[in-house]
């Protein structure tokens, strides 16, 4: 099915566009777009609320392991690494530029116990026992690669497609392309497992050159899930209502003397929407409504697993209510970064994230949500086979592992490969642009046809590159 619309006859009027849903979080008017009505018409029309073709996935949960998990200690076993441990990498391996310059340091063995799991028999190390139990739902992509060699560029690229700041992130593109299914909640929600800020801060979920309405909205735990949602202290509900009524009268009068002004109408509606959100959000984040069994599944009651577990459970509640794109940072602030003491670092990170991740997959599956919810796991890059500071590993952008599950992905498959040491992706290499194109493909969006005009230039999510790895689907 191809529902990309013809252009001219379907051009919506100014007013229609304003009143459509799916123009970003609570966005009722985007006159930045409207001012360029003609430019908009000339482009292949942005597909507000309409995919280009039948989607497999309707929603995305992106579990971002921030700091760079070690693929060669988790999903991509390398027997040669242990054989050559302590030696320099053979000259036959091309030298990359690495963040810490560790190209000639001795190779570091992986002391993990590796086993094949599930019916598919995919390899997972003993650091991820719970994820291993879900391996038949995963498509493990061992051949990811990126350009950013540092955290900042790497995280930026995994979100926006390029290491240099300034572009909209994937969640914003999805928000722009598909909008939300629930007007009272943001289409794109971001959480962090701790109060730490991820590398680059809110820039990671920013809409870049697109209107801010497409950016991710931070979901906070506690009394005020979204910023400024609660009425200020000291203002009674009665006073609040009275103020909104007085405001409405002022605005109605202001509009009445100004002829047809849809932007002014939109502003009036934005206050109505704010009011409805104040009512809807607290229910959406109320975890006390979950059963004890569900809470157990996500690792509640254990100080190691509960923080990330809460995020995962909130993510499920969000996608259940029509939120389009949820991103959770585990290890916010580069906690997976293990330049030294790999063993202690990854033991901790895996302990915190493994059980809730598996819990999320199981919960989504048992509720029938996994079929339409794409779950993505991975960091900004992997780690080098070369050691750093004796017992750590440097950043490895040239080859690393991510996995996807649900949302039409065929589980139990391994895609691509790295070389014998896990340094360079060699087979079926998937650049970040390809990964993003794949995500968009599953959502029914063709990556090069999702256009936003910036400075008169047609921009797309993968910067004129990227090809979806279509074999990832059920077929």
């Amino acid at each position, binding site marked *: 099915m191809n529902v990309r619309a013809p252009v001219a006859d379907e051009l919506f009027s100014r007013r229609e566009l304003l009143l459509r849903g799916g123009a*970003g*979080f609570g*966005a009722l*008017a*985007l*006159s930045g777009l409207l*001012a*360029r009505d003609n*430019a908009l018409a000339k482009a292949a029309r942005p597909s507000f609320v309409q995919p280009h073709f039948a989607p497999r996935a309707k929603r995305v949960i992106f579990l971002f392991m921030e700091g760079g998990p070690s693929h060669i200690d988790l999903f991509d076993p390398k027997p040669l690494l242990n054989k050559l441990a302590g030696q320099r990498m053979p000259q036959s391996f091309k030298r990359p*530029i690495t*963040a*810490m*310059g560790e*190209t000639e340091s001795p190779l570091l063995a992986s002391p993990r116990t590796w086993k094949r799991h599930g019916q598919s028999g995919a390899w997972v190390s003993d650091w991820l026992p719970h994820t291993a139990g879900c391996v038949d739902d995963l498509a493990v992509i061992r051949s990811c690669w990126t350009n950013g*060699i540092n*955290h900042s*560029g790497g995280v930026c690229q995994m979100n926006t497609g390029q290491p*240099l*700041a*300034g572009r909209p992130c994937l969640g914003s593109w999805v928000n722009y392309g598909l909008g939300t299914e629930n007007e009272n909640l943001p289409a794109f929600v971001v959480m962090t497992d701790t109060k730490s800020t991820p590398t*680059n*801060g809110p*820039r990671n979920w920013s809409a870049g*050159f*697109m*209107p*801010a*309405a497409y950016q991710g909205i931070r979901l906070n735990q506690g009394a005020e899930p979204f*910023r*400024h949602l*609660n009425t*200020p202290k*000291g203002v*009674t509900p009665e*006073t609040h209502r*009275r*103020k909104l009524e*007085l*405001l409405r*009268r*002022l*605005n109605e*009068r*202001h509009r009445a*003397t*100004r*002829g*047809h*002004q849809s*932007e*002014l109408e939109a*502003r*009036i509606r*934005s*206050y109505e929407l*704010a009011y409805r959100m104040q009512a809807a959000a607290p229910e959406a984040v109320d975890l006390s409504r979950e059963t004890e069994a569900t809470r157990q599944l996500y690792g509640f009651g254990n100080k190691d697993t509960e923080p990330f577990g809460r995020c995962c459970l909130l993510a499920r509640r969000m996608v259940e209510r029509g939120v389009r794109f949820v991103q959770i940072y585990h290890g916010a602030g580069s906690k997976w970064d293990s330049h030294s003491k790999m063993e202690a670092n990854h033991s901790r990170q895996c302990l915190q994230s493994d059980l809730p991740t598996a819990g999320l997959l199981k919960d989504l599956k048992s509720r029938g949500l996994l079929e339409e919810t794409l779950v993505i796991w991975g960091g900004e890059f992997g780690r080098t086979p070369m050691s750093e500071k004796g017992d750590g590993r440097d950043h490895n952008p040239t080859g690393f592992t991510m996995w996807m599950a649900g949302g039409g992905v065929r589980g139990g498959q391994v895609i691509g490969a790295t070389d014998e040491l896990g340094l360079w992706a060699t087979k079926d290499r998937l650049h970040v642009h390809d990964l993003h194109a794949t995500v968009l493909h599953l959502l029914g969006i063709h990556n090069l046809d999702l256009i936003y005009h910036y*400075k*008169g*230039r*047609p921009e797309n999510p993968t910067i004129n590159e990227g090809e979806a790895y279509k074999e990832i689907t059920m077929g």
Partner: protein
Amino acid sequence: MSEKSLFINILSCNPKPSAWPSGGWFFTNKGGIFAGMIQRLAILWVLLGGPVFAAEFTQADRDWWAFQPVRQAAMPTEGGGWAVNAIDHFIARKLTVHELSPAPAADRRTLIRRVCLDLTGLPPAPEQITSFLDDDSPDAYEKLIDRLLDSPRYGERQATLWLDLVRYADSDGYKSDHYRPEAWRYRDYVIRSFNTNKPYDRFVREQLAGDEIDPGNRDALIATMFLRHWIYEYNQRDVETQWRDILADVTNVTGDVLLGMGLQCARCHDHKFDPIPQRDYYRIQAFFAPLLPRDSMPVGTVPQRSKFFRKHKAWAAATGDIRRQLDAIEQPALLKNTTGEGFGKFIDKIKTMIRKRPEDRTAYQRQIAELSERQFGVEPAKLPERLMGASKAEWERLRSELKEFEAQKPRPLPQVKFVVSDAGPVAPATRIPKKGDVVEPGFLSILDPGPARITPPQAALQSTGRRTALAWWITDPDNPLMSRVMVNRLWQQHFGRGLAANTSDFGKLGEPPTHPELLDWLAARFVADGWSLKKMHRLIVTSATYRQASTNEQSERADPANTWFARAPIRRLGAEQVRDGLLAVSGELDLESGGEGVAADKSNRRSVYRKVMRNSPNEVMHTFDMPDHISHMPQRNVTTTATQSLLLLNSEWTRQRAAALAKRLAKRHPGNAGAKIVDAHELAFGQAPLPSQLNDALAFLDACGAANKPPGLAALTEYCHVLMNANAFLYVD
């Protein structure tokens, strides 16, 4: 090499022999006999000295409106009786064609609020409104304009628009987002330039090449920070890639801001829509190829710099041997113990460049080595403890020997930081990636296909003169782009949309101008008026077109997008106007000018003086569509979101403004609720309340007062808070 690029190499007189045809070229036959023949004839033509023409452009390319010379057409006759100045005659002609009539003139209250916000970024104070309403002289409005243009607030407002274009910020924009302690001097330079009405061409030349054009003028050096606002990653070990990205950023922003041409498409391939071959991208980039970021740059006139240069040269010659020996001892010891990110993490190629003595480096090596050296520090003070034995004795001997020449050393000139110069008088080669062809500096070849003529400046400046050549070409009155681009930006500022809607893209992806003759007339007038921005603002805001009311039923129906300007647009306040406006209304705005930036949430100074930290923008401003200042922003997004409503309704910051306004009113009108309400409306909206609004307000105060303790001030605060959320405050018409 393809035949096409071979052809171009010859056409553009590429001096690199490998770019030239090898033996037998004349007899090979690729791409058809006829085409091949024509190509060869063309090559022969060039070889025989015929005039060079660029072969790649079609007639349609050459006919594109933006590349035509600016032509000042005769003023139309339409609009008699209504027109105030030439602008109105051009507008009237199109109105006649489209059978539209202009809106009636806006009332004085509406007009003063509009023009105050446009020119100074602040709503008018009630006293300003009263004095304008009371002035019944025929030129009351013109006098108001002159007062506003003379106000220091004018430069502050215009600067906010310029800073969007040049992606100004006070921080690096990467992971650590390091603060840039010197950047604010550029912001003050911009404000100063606008307030003193510096001719726009001079303003542009200073920013591109102030170090070459006027090296003794501190302001002209600060202006070159225009070339420093790129994002920067302090620990990027892939130094050469980072440098390439910096040069690309500088090239792109120059094209966007000054030429109104999106060049970046041509970084990797010929532009798909506009006649900008990839080669042109690198011809323009070549002007910046010798660029060197400088954090200590001497301020000195050419004679001062020459004197210093001569003395320094003599000293360097006399001490050359000593210093070479000293370096041989010091450098290994210094690089062994480095601070910061350290020396050891670079690849060998970079290490070799760093190890090279500064005076032995090529320009490119200097660029890369100095960019790398920003990542680590050395500790010369610790040398005495780190050197041992014979080498230490030798080191001490050489040091004292060097000291004897101290008197010959010239006294250092005063310095400025965070600016640029060239890396030396010889520019590094600019090559087209993957193709490897060396490119010499040149302009957009559709306008000027030949190589740029470059005059090196005095030797003392150690500069190539390339950026000066670019600056003069861009600001040449015959360049059809710069004047059009700037007057179009001013038009956008006052009417919400440019005469050409894409203010930074005059190419085929942008929209052609709705009023090409008016655009040209304004561009020519701008140049004729000595590139005076104030005169241009004055011309625009005194036009009858600008002074129209925002309602015009006929135009709203027949021309909803207001393409023909038969009414004033209704516009939402920009981010600075929202924040500054709320502070002005509450009486808290601190009008102190200039100096280092302040945290916007902890200060009541104007938003233009806030620290622009790229990774942590001010919440109020970000919510109201403040751009990120990572890349060029020619036209801000304007969104209407529930997030904005929640912020205005519930945030502590807005509540504090409401409380301050309530206190201000209580002080100005003790005990008189009616007067408070009238004053509040005047302050927030520039209008008096209607009788029904006064009644609503009194009823609201009564009801809230009964519910709140203590009554009075608390209720008044809630009332003020409502006004600060109202469309009559947030929009201007």
